């Protein structure tokens, strides 16, 4: 294996890990609330803007410009996006469960799609279409092996992703709240009967999605910069991943994310660079046609 292919594999894995952060939030929200959050890409965008606002000195608080170190800005940006996610759940998505409503699925899709346009064009009107550059997490390019160099920011993003994915998996499989989440995903009514507050589970899921999307947005902000529609392509990759991994399956999402990252970077070597973004959609349509329950998902069962 020559270095070029090796570099592409490394790149694919790095992208896969970051895609996994985006897809994990989507899949948790889907498994708990049965809602595909079409505004997830704008959560990602908000993460980038939050990092920029906190670290670049463009925003002043009591006439002191905010110039926090990026490493401090990252958790703050994550928390900010998580709070936004909770507000969205409280203000817009809660009626899906609590009110008697015509076709709640349609309501949720149109509402989150509207929210996505709202945030995107809100950013365009207030901040403008300019690309913003927040500070770097790990400056310069790092020597890996042989002739292979990688940008420090990408390595930092991948490393942090591994940590956050591990933390999320521990939270879901290792704590009582996580078990309550899984129970809610399996059977909402049943978990209400055994005393789980499912509304609180909705909030937890949205907050978790906000944390992860905010982290992804902030981590990639120094690499891809921040602009209003920065979240559009990543979120569509996220959709592909949750369908490929099986809607609602958490290990499936991580697994599928790495597969997609590899398919993209190897596909652009062996097939066509221009079609890099098309592969994801072909995978999406193929999976929906031939294996609608995804790689690790369960087949739909009616209760």
């Amino acid at each position, binding site marked *: 294996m020559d270095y070029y292919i090796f570099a592409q594999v490394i790149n694919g894995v790095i992208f896969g890990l970051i895609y996994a952060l985006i897809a994990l939030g989507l899949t948790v929200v*889907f498994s708990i609330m049965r*809602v*595909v959050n*079409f505004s997830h890409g704008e959560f990602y965008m908000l993460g980038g803007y939050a990092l920029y606002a906190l670290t670049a000195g463009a925003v002043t608080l009591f006439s002191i410009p905010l110039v926090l170190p990026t490493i401090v800005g990252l958790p703050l940006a994550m928390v900010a996006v998580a709070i936004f996610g909770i507000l969205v759940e409280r203000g*817009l998505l809660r*009626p899906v469960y609590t*009110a*008697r*409503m*015509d*076709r709640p*699925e*349609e*309501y949720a*899709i*149109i*509402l989150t*799609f*509207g*929210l996505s*346009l*709202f945030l995107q*064009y*809100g950013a*365009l*009107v207030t901040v403008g279409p300019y690309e913003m550059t927040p500070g770097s997490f790990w400056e310069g390019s790092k020597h890996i092996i042989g002739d292979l160099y990688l940008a420090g920011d990408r390595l930092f993003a991948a490393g942090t992703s591994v940590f956050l994915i591990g933390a999320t998996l521990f939270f879901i499989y290792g704590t009582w709240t996580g078990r309550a989440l899984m129970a809610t995903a399996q059977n909402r009514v049943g978990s209400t009967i055994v005393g789980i507050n499912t509304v609180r589970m909705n909030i937890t899921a949205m907050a978790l999605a906000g944390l992860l999307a905010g982290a992804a947005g902030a981590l990639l902000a120094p690499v891809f910069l921040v602009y209003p529609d920065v979240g*559009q392509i990543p979120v*569509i990759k996220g*959709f*592909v991943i949750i*369908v490929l991994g099986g*809607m609602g399956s958490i290990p499936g999402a991580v697994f599928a994310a790495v597969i997609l990252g590899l398919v993209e970077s190897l596909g652009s070597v062996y097939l066509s660079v*221009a*079609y890099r*973004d*098309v592969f*994801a*959609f*072909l995978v*999406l*349509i193929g999976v*929906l*046609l031939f294996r*609608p329950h995804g790689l690790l998902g369960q087949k739909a069962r009616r209760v």
Partner: protein
Amino acid sequence: MTRFEKTTCVLALAGGLAIPLLLYDQPYLIRVAASVLYFIILSSSWNLLLGYAGQLSFAHAAFAAIGAYTSGLLSAGFLGDNFCTSLVENGLGVVSDLFCGENYSRDFSYGVHPGISIFVGGAVAAGIGWCLGRMCLRTRGPYLALMTLGFSETVRLILQIEHEYTRGSLGLRIPYLWITDDGLPNHAVGYLIMLALTVVTIVVLYYLVNSEKGLFFKAIREDEDVAAVMGVDLVKWKVNAFVISSGFAGLAGAIYAHLFVQVLAPQMLLLLEMGLILAMTIVGGLGTLTGPIIGAILLVVLWEFMRDISPYAHMLLFATLVIIVMKFFRAGIFGLIARRLKAKNLISKAPPFTVE
């Protein structure tokens, strides 16, 4: 139809016909009026899918673009001079006159006449709609939305990447459908052609949704499984909804492109366009024929007033309107009016949406 409804229809049609007479010396406003008609066709046909058959598709703007690009490529000489000369050499001069045009204009000498290619565009869009409808048969709810979103983005990327044929983001220049002797388009005539297509769309949709077929669509929307048990052929009617709506979208896209757009770019497939169609239908009133018409007129007028503020402000307003309407009155503007009109027995049917 009650007398009130008939009067409203006649008045609306008269108003539509009066616009080119009133605005004869203001081509910009005629263009705006034509864009209203374009959006009326798109949102009405999208409404057939979502409001009547309950299929949430994000690919509608893609179908308009497929129609426009098919027609544009054919009329801009995609077939190439080799094809046309080989027709003449093989004694098929009649066919080449039809498809290759007799010097329709200097730039597009080897293209199909737009008068023919627009129907090809509509047919290709309907055919692709048939394929997508077949592919989406087993997918429901969010899966259908994701699948159509993926399809739409794929079409956009392909149009952008294959720039050898489509000229990508540079834009594909296409001939006018109708030019006067001085070589310029006549916007008033273009507007009337759009108006005719709008009337045809609305009339077809009216007879469709008020017939037995309309009941099939509504049954599928309410509950697919129950509809199937009651003997509705799910495969047939879901696919039919896709074919009809994408056919109209393709035709509208092609005709509008040849009359008013002139340069096609993949930007017409951005989610923004889909957002416009969605906003017009939702704000006007989902599941009614009048709703999308009101929505399209209102939103385009608002858009024109907001051009001075910021090039993006209109979309921010429309997204806000979508959220407010979905949250507080899902029946849309027409739903609010219709309840009052129904109480006075002015209209025959209340809108279908039961709100909370």
